[in-house]
């Protein structure tokens, strides 16, 4: 979320730069490969702004001088401090700083209309330009520096003025405290602006800018409150009580847990509150910015880390210079309070998001749990309680249902003869047979002779068969004799023939 916001803040600075300069810094594209972090992009833009501010310093000084004059007229009612503060405000107005404009308007309303006209005109131009609170802030710091330079007094003078302001505060806070508190905001601003912007949705981001810049409906309320406060108070006092408020708030903030405050501003209702809270901080932040940032002129800006030694009164503020390096001062006014919370909150909201995600994951995890039957249906692989495992069951034990059924069957099988003993006695001898081991059911084996030889069957000779044989034999013999006779005759004949031929040939 904060990452999304950052481009908005960066664009603001760019727009302001565009006002003052023809060239605009490269757009801040968080998440782009070229820009690894938002802080770096902010530092770039601020460095460029500082460099540009150095170039434009002369022109601004001239402008501030011109503006200081009318302001002196307006602020002439009271302290010179006001004159110094007021010139910063008209500069802011020129640069489209609403908080300053608000305070300045509140201060100026009772005063000359000329000053209002001067201040309002730049506001209108700013409004026409659109929501550009940050550029205003950046410009605010620069013109403030110009203001600080104009009096040519040291930052100490401005700080003493601030201390003089804070002195009458009911909080009775000393200078270092107020300065510390003033110093605190800028640090968180750098880190926290993204968080604020992140906490505030794109809608909320514009309203914030609108609150600071344009008097929108919701802004008007906040402005009305601010204007009421400022109206009741003289311009100097308005700033002083604001500082005091800021001081009062700061200790409270110290006592508070930073997280809850920072979490809440996400709501729309908190947006105007933040605006109201920021607006009082703005002048303080501006004053310190004017004192601290302007002291190191654009030329000295690279040496800002070294510049803190100049404000020795700020010795209790060790963090001041590095924070200025972060460029928090530019973003100070609108995001002032938010920044206070940011250092602790930047990581926390992410953690919270992560926690919520984890919780969501867990919740979803549990939600996604199937409603599988826990009893475990057999055959589906569900684990069973070993005690319920059928493998461990004792089959010898009969179920109570079975037992009762058996019992009923047995009860039905009990017969009560007239004299059971007598009946049993009668069967005592007969039953003895059944008590013996029953014989095997197989057929008895037939014992065969050991001799394996096969003997021919001896049949008695029958007479019929012998007559048939004799007859047959007689037939056979008759026939044989006949043939023998025929054969002998043939032989004789043949022999006679052969012999007769021989005899005849011999002849």
């Amino acid at each position, binding site marked *: 979320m904060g990452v999304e916001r950052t481009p908005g803040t960066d664009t603001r600075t760019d727009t302001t730069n565009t006002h003052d300069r023809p060239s605009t810094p490269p757009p801040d594209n968080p998440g782009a490969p070229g820009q690894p972090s938002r802080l770096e992009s902010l530092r770039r833009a601020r460095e460029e702004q500082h460099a540009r501010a150095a170039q434009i310093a002369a022109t601004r000084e001239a402008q501030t001088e011109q503006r200081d004059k009318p302001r002196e007229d307006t602020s002439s009612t009271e302290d010179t401090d006001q004159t110094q503060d007021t010139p910063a405000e008209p500069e802011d107005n020129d640069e489209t700083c609403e908080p300053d404009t608000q305070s300045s308007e509140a201060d100026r309303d009772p005063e000359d209309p000329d000053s209002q006209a001067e201040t309002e005109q730049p506001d209108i131009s700013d409004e026409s330009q659109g929501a550009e609170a940050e550029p205003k802030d950046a410009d605010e710091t620069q013109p403030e520096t110009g203001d600080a330079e104009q009096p040519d007094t040291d930052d100490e003078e401005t700080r003493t003025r601030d201390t003089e302001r804070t002195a009458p505060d009911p909080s009775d806070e000393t200078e270092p405290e107020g300065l510390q508190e003033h110093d605190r905001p800028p640090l968180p601003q750098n880190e926290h602006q993204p968080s604020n912007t992140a906490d505030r949705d794109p809608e909320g981001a514009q309203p914030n800018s609108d609150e600071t810049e344009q008097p929108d409906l919701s802004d008007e309320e906040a402005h009305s409150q601010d204007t009421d406060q400022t109206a009741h108070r003289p311009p100097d006092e308005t700033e002083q009580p604001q500082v005091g408020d800021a001081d009062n708030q700061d200790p409270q903030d110290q006592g508070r847990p930073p997280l809850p405050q920072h979490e809440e501003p996400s709501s729309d209702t908190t947006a105007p509150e933040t605006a109201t809270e920021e607006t009082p901080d703005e002048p303080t932040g501006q004053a310190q910015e004017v004192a601290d940032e302007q002291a190191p002129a654009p030329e000295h800006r690279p040496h800002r880390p070294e510049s803190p030694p100049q404000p020795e009164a700020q010795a209790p503020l060790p963090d001041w210079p590095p924070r200025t390096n972060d460029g928090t001062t530019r973003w100070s006014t609108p995001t002032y309070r938010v920044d206070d919370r940011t250092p602790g909150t930047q990581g926390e909201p992410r953690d919270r998001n992560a926690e919520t995600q984890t919780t969501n994951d867990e919740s979803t995890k549990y939600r996604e749990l199937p409603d599988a039957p826990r009893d475990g249906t057999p055959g589906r692989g569900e684990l069973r309680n070993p005690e319920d495992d059928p493998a461990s069951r004792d089959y010898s034990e009969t179920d109570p249902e079975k037992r009762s059924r058996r019992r009923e*069957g047995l009860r039905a099988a009990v*017969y009560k003869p007239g004299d059971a*003993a007598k*009946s049993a006695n009668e069967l005592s001898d007969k039953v003895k047979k059944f008590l013996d081991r*029953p014989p095997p059911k197989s057929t008895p084996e037939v014992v065969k002779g050991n001799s394996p030889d096969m003997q021919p069957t001896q049949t008695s000779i029958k007479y019929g068969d012998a007559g048939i044989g004799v007859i047959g034999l007689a037939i056979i013999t008759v026939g044989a004799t006949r043939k023998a006779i025929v054969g002998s005759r043939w032989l004789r004949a043949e022999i006679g023939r052969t012999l007769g031929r021989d005899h005849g040939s011999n002849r």
Partner: protein
Amino acid sequence: MAVTDEQVAALHAQLAGRAEEHKRLLQQLDRAKANEGYSALVAAAFFEAAERRFIRAGEVADKAEVIDFVGSIRARAEENVDLIDPEIAERMILHVIGQTSNEEVRSFDAEVAFKHQIILMAALVGEAQFSDEELDAFIVKVRADAEDLFE
């Protein structure tokens, strides 16, 4: 207690093949109590023996096996074959294995059914060929079942 030790001892003597002792113990029994306890012991012994014979590993024998068993008994009976009515014997066994209703069994004559129980009991125990320990355990189980009928 309907089942007495004398009744149990008489049954144990009969199943152990001690016919003379069995007769002696029977004569010592109280007739009235014997009609209750001893008849219950005989029924329980027949029931237990028939379950062991026709229900093995949870599987119940079919009717053919029952018929075959009754036929074998009748074959052994020889001249006393008229003591065993095959239909009654088969139904009594089928009742034990749950294939006949209780009402059908109750319809039998008590004297005839009691004698059939004694014959079937003796045949089943003789086929089982219990050892002395097994016979003692069998008698304990039978007594428990018989006593369970009177609780």
